[in-house]
């Protein structure tokens, strides 16, 4: 038993109409009409929104059944089943029109209960399928439209095919349509680096998916911004890249913060490198955590036993150096300021001689605290007389020189 449907009957012959209506009612369906004219059928379809339409090919009035079918399927998306006489089924030209009308089913007269039941079952199935499709289409559409990340589809020639609102707005275009028609070449209008898109395409062809692809791109108003793209290739049947889909995040704020941070770090680095004193940060086990250029130069001086190891570590990006604290002895032969600091804490200073060589220095040690206030290390400053001052630009050069001296 098919679920009850509201069926519009369009039939100008009173006997035929009564027959169809009788069959429908017997099957438990609700009849709308009958309409005798095409125009009337279209009006009823519009006003009543039936689940299905049974339509005779020949109707009274100016509009025949094929034309009415075309109007109803196109405008209201209601399934139509055409009904025709046996002689008309042999008319090839007419059958061509029927096939192109958008009708879902076709029955010839006299209509039997079996044929009607079968056709209405197809209608029900079609309606459910359609509703599901429309539903999921709307869900995806809504995710796509409301996403806060940019989503696009592009072809390998450098044009956007589809964009969501977020992506268009990210780049300063008034909407997706504006972006898709306005960008004729990503190479000229989007990517700052001329070969950037080709790099992305090459990686897509090789890997299929590319994540975290960070580029500088132009907005509509000429502003440069940083974006991170996550792209997936879509291939055609021959395995050729047909287009690709991208998810885009604006990472301008992050990249700019990183750049500011790097600049600040560079200033701090240059500042301690500019000091003529040897400055070194130690943990409580006398491990060197960080040192300035003057200290690295002192420790890697010719003949220093740890020069090779130091040179290896000095090239590290953050400047950490994997050696122990410089060996020194105090002028009076007792504990050094560092010894005293590790025993008693506080600020310690006094004259020492650096080993090897015995260069005289003044050593001062001050506590270094973690954010919670606990002492976790010490800053040690060795000041020797007659030691020249390193300029800011000399610092990195000295460090690079040290790193280059592997295997000394």
């Amino acid at each position, binding site marked *: 038993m098919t679920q009850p449907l509201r069926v519009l009957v369009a039939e100008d012959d009173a006997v035929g109409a009564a027959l169809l209506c009788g069959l429908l009612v017997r099957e438990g369906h609700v009849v709308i009409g009958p309409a005798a004219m095409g125009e009337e059928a279209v009006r009823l379809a519009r006003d009543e929104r039936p689940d299905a339409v049974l339509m005779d090919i020949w109707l009274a009035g100016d509009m025949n059944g094929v034309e009415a079918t075309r109007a109803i399927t196109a405008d209201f998306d209601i399934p139509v089943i055409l009904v025709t006489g046996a002689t008309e089924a042999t008319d090839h030209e007419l059958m061509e029109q029927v096939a192109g009308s958008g009708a879902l089913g076709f029955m010839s007269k006299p209509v039997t209960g079996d044929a009607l039941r079968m056709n209405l079952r197809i209608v029900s199935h079609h309606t459910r399928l359609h509703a599901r499709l429309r539903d999921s289409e709307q869900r995806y559409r809504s995710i796509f439209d409301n996403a806060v990340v940019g989503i696009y589809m592009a072809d390998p020639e450098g044009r956007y095919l589809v964009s969501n609102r977020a992506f268009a707005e990210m780049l300063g275009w008034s909407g997706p349509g504006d972006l898709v028609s306005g960008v004729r070449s990503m190479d000229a209008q989007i990517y700052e680096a001329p070969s950037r898109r080709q790099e992305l395409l090459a990686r897509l062809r090789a890997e299929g998916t590319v994540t975290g692809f960070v580029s500088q791109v132009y907005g509509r108003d000429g502003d440069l911004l940083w974006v991170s793209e996550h792209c997936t290739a879509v291939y055609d049947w021959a395995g050729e890249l047909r287009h690709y889909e991208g998810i885009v995040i604006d990472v301008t704020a992050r990249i700019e913060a990183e750049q500011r941070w790097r600049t600040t770090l560079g200033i701090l680095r240059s500042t301690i490198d500019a000091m003529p004193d040897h400055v070194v940060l130690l943990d409580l*086990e006398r*491990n060197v*955590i960080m040192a300035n250029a003057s200290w690295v130069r002192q420790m890697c001086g010719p003949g220093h036993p740890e020069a090779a190891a130091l040179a290896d570590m000095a090239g590290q990006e953050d400047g950490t150096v994997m050696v122990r604290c410089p060996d020194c002895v105090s002028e009076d032969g007792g504990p050094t300021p560092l010894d005293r600091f590790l025993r008693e804490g506080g600020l310690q200073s006094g004259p020492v001689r650096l080993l090897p060589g015995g260069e005289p220095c003044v050593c001062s040690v001050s506590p270094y605290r973690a954010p919670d206030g606990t002492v976790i290390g010490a800053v040690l400053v060795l000041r020797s007389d007659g030691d020249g001052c390193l300029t800011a630009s000399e610092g990195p050069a000295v460090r690079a020189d040290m790193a280059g001296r592997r295997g000394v």
Partner: protein
Amino acid sequence: MMRKHQFAKIDCNCTRRATHLKCVFCGVMEYRSLDEARRMSLGQAECQHADAPQVPPQEKFRAMMGGTLDCLAPDYDTHFKPD
């Protein structure tokens, strides 16, 4: 000298949905993501097993200054897999 756990993925039949990680050395289990294992605090990271790797002084110092310790074993994906 401080030592740190080395976590690797392990299969588990229980209903917890987090990633199951087990230290290759001391066997402790943690319900954490891979990313969390890459960024552990000093307290979370410490392993008592004598064969666990030592924490380099620089990494430990950074952790005390608010940084984190990487406790993911190099072969974290395959270590506990029967092959």
